[in-house]
């Protein structure tokens, strides 16, 4: 996939977590993901439509999301509960919004649906189509998460 389409999601992820959760996220090397099994314990998934169809997912391991949401709320979160689920939805929403702003500047105008969130080990993420899924691994001080992007191009 064209890096011009991936970079907005990378930049948006770093910016959202730094601004809302005071968390520094380091992006690793993107790769093509061959299966549908989520890499984390909780995932937000969101469809984008318009000048292309796209899905984006953000999948957090338990340690990373508990730390991120603790920072967002200013209090220690210790359980994977509805508050965490809700926060993952909002984080996915914000990443999508920032990325879409950049994509709009590149001439790709997209609208977002409301995200869904799935929680649980070994859950699956089904993207918009059989097109290639690009996975971008991220690491934080507290744990890891993965952003996946699939563009029907």
């Amino acid at each position, binding site marked *: 996939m064209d890096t011009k389409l991936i970079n907005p999601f990378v930049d948006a992820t770093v910016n959202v977590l730094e*601004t809302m959760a005071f968390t520094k996220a380091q992006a690793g090397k993107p790769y093509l993901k061959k299966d549908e099994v989520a890499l984390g314990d909780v995932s937000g998934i969101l469809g984008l439509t318009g000048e292309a169809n796209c899905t984006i997912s953000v999948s957090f391991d338990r340690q990373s999301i508990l730390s991120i949401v603790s920072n967002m709320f200013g209090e220690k979160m210790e359980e994977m509960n509805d*508050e965490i689920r809700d926060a993952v939805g909002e984080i996915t*929403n914000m990443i999508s919004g920032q990325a879409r702003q950049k994509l709009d500047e590149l001439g790709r105008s997209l609208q977002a649906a409301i995200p869904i969130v799935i929680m649980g080990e070994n859950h699956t993420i089904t993207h918009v189509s059989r097109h290639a899924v690009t996975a971008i691994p991220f690491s934080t001080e507290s744990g890891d998460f993965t952003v996946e992007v699939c563009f029907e191009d």
Partner: protein
Amino acid sequence: MDLNMNVLVVDDFATMRRIIKNVLKQIGFTKILEADDGTTALAVLKKNKVDLIISDWNMPKMTGLDLLKKVRGEESTKSIPFVMVTAEAQKDNVLQAVQAGVSNYVVKPFTADAIKEKLTRVFAK
């Protein structure tokens, strides 16, 4: 800015309502009402005197933009300051909101200082 005013926070994500409420409390607001979408917000507006609305855009049942248009279309609510706090950051979105009568626009992600600054500007007008 009168910190005794009644503020209505509208967002379908409880996380975001909580974060915005925390920021409002930091500023000094104490009377904060909540709604999880536009339809609920209208019901809250019918029952309560509200002096400021802070709303998301992308919500089920009724979007923040549609809520804004309804608020501006009613005699009893048309003058209430309305601040959109949203991930919808494309130029077209901002233009639509301005044309519908938004008082100010905050793009997510935001800092507490950004919210404070925008609210200060709204009430300085």
